[in-house]
C-alpha cells in the first residue's frame, strides 16, 4: 500500500533522512523510533508530501505521492501533527468534523462518523465545549479524532494511511492504552499506520514492525523483538537499559538501566 524507496530528505543543507527504504501493507502498523532530531518527524511529513525528497520516492497504492490530486490524497492519507496552532473557539465536534472536509459523504453520514470518532477517542462528553478551553491531552484526542475520521471508512477510499506523530505524548496512562487500541481497531479495518513513538515498550506492544532511526540513518528495521534489544538501545540513545519480555504479550519491554 505504501512504498518508500531510498527516500532522502534534506533541510537547511543537512541530510535529515538518508535512503529510508520500507513498505507497508494495508492494516500494518510501523512504529518509528529514535532519539530527538533523528529525522522521525521529517520522515513522517514526507509521507504526506509536506517536504519534497532530494532523492527516492514515496508511492501510495502504486502511484507516486506527487501524482495524487490534493483532494484525492486527503481522502487516503491523514497526519496527526505533534502540536496544533488552532486558537479559535470551535467546539470539539466542529473541529472533528473538519476531518470530513475532503469527503463528499453527505451531512448525515458525516454526523454519524463524527459521533463514532468522538466515542472512540473518549471525548463525546466534551462535544460542545470550545476547543480552546481543553487541556493538552484533551486537545490531542480531539485532533486524533479529526485525523482518524479522514480515513474512517473503507467505502470512501480503499487504500488508507494514517500518520501519527507522537499520538500519545500528552496522554495519561489510561488514555495512552485507550488510544492505541482505537488505532489498532482502525488498522484491523485495513488502514496502514505509521507512528512516531517515544515510549519504546508501547511501540513494541502495538506495532507490527519497527524502524529505528539515528541521524537519519536506518539502524534497524523489523519485528519488535528483533529491533528492541539492550545493545540497540545503547546504540540509539547512548544510555544503559535492560530489555525484558512482557509476561502477557511476549513483546519486549525497556527498563531504565
Amino acid at each position: 500500500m505504501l512504498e518508500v524507496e531510498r527516500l532522502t530528505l534534506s533541510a537547511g543543507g543537512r541530510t535529515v533522512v538518508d535512503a529510508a527504504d520500507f513498505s507497508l501493507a494495508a492494516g500494518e502498523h510501523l512504529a518509528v523510533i529514535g532519539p530527538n532530531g533523528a529525522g522521525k518527524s521529517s520522515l513522517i511529513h514526507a509521507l504526506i508530501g509536506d517536504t519534497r525528497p532530494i532523492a527516492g520516492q514515496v508511492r501510495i497504492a502504486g502511484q507516486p505521492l506527487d501524482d495524487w490530486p490534493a483532494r484525492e490524497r486527503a481522502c487516503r492519507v491523514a497526519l496527526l501533527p505533534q502540536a496544533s496552532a488552532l486558537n479559535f473557539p470551535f467546539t470539539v465536534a466542529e473541529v472533528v468534523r473538519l476531518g470530513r472536509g475532503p469527503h463528499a459523504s453527505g451531512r448525515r453520514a458525516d454526523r454519524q462518523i463524527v459521533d463514532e470518532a468522538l466515542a472512540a477517542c473518549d471525548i463525546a462528553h466534551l462535544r460542545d465545549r470550545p476547543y480552546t478551553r481543553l487541556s493538552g491531552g484533551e486537545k490531542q484526542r480531539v485532533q486524533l479524532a479529526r485525523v482518524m475520521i479522514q480515513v474512517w471508512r473503507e467505502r470512501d477510499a480503499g487504500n488508507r494511511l494514517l500518520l501519527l506523530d507522537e499520538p500519545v505524548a500528552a496522554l495519561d496512562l489510561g488514555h495512552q492504552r485507550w488510544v492505541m487500541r482505537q488505532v489498532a481497531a482502525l488498522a484491523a479495518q485495513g488502514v496502514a499506520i505509521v507512528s512516531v513513538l517515544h515510549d519504546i515498550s508501547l511501540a513494541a506492544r502495538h506495532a507490527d514492525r519497527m524502524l529505528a532511526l539515528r541521524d537519519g540513518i536506518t539502524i534497524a528495521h523489523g519485528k519488535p523483538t528483533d529491533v528492541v534489544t539492550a545493545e540497540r538501545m545503547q546504540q540509539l540513545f547512548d544510555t544503559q537499559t535492560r530489555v525484558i519480555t512482557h509476561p502477557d504479550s511476549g513483546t519486549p519491554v525497556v527498563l531504565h538501566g
Partner: protein
Amino acid sequence: MSPRRLVWLLAVALPICLLAAVLYGAVRLPALDVLAVLVGWDDGMDRLALIVRQLRLPRALLTALVGALLAICGAAMQGLFRNPLADPSLIGVTAGASVGASLVIVFGSGLAGFVGLSLVSLGAFAGGTAAVLLVYRLATGPEGTSVATMLLAGIAIGALAGSVGSLLEFYADNEMLRRISLWRMGGLDGANWSRVVIVAGVGALILAVLPRQAAALNALLLGESEARHLGIAVDRVKRRLVLLTAAGVGVSVAVAGAITFVGLVVPHIVRMLIGPDHRWLLPASAMAGAILLLVADTLARVVIAPTELPVGLLTALLGAPFFISLLRRRREYGL
C-alpha cells in the same frame, strides 16, 4: 445563539436600518411618502422625491455596501492570518490608500475625476491596491506565501506609508491639511449613483466569491499544513483572499475614506455570538457590518444636523461599548 437565528435577525434588521437611513437626516421624511417613492408609485419630481432618489437612497445603499465589504473582508483576513485581531489594514491597504489620497490632495488638486469618482478616490484605490500587491510580493517566495512575512511586510509598508504621509502633510497648506484629516476620518457624504454602481459591482463579486472560501478558511484555522493535508490548495486560496480583500477594502476606502473599526470588530462580535465557523461568520459579518455602518451614518447625519459628524467617529462610539460588554463574557467564549 444559534447561527441560523442570528442570520435571520440580521436579515430582518438590515432592511429596517436601510429604510431608517432614508427616512432620517437633516430633515425627517414622512414614511408613507418615502415608501411611495421607493416602490415607484410616486414618480414625481418634487422635493421629497429628489431627496430620496438623489441623496438618501444612494447614500444608504453605498453605506450598506461599504459596511458589508469592510466586515466580510475583515472576517476573511482574520481567518487567513489565524488571528482574531487582524484587520485589512494589516496588509497595508489603508496606509497605502491614505498616501494615495494625500498625494492627490497635495499635488493633483487641479485635475478632474472619472465617472463620479473624484481623483482623491482614484488615488486612494491606486495607493491601497499598490500597497497590498507590494506586501504580497514581498511575502511570496519559491516556497509559497508566508503569512507571517506578509504581516511583517504589512507593518513595514504601513510605517513607510505613514512617514510619506507625514512628509506630505509637512508640505501641505492649511486647506489641504483639513481635507487630508477629514478624508482620514472617513465619510459617506460623497455618495452618488455612479459610486453605488461601482461599489455594487465589486461588492457583488466579493460577496459571491468569499463565502465559497468558507470551508477552506475553516481548515486554514487549523494551520497551513493541516489545511493542505485536508486537500486545500492553500496558496491558491491565499492569493484569492488577498486579492479580493484588497479590491474590497480598496474600493471602500476609495469611496468612503478610512472607516476604521468595522473590519476589525464586527467579525469579532459575530464570532463571539455564533462561533468561528466561516460558513455562517462570513454572511453574518457582511450583514452586521452593513447594519453598524448604516446606524452610525444615520446618527452622524442627525445628531448635530445640519452639520454631519465624520462617520468613523460614530462606528467606534457605537461598536466599542457593545464589544466591551461581550468581552466581559469572554470566559464562555473560550479565549
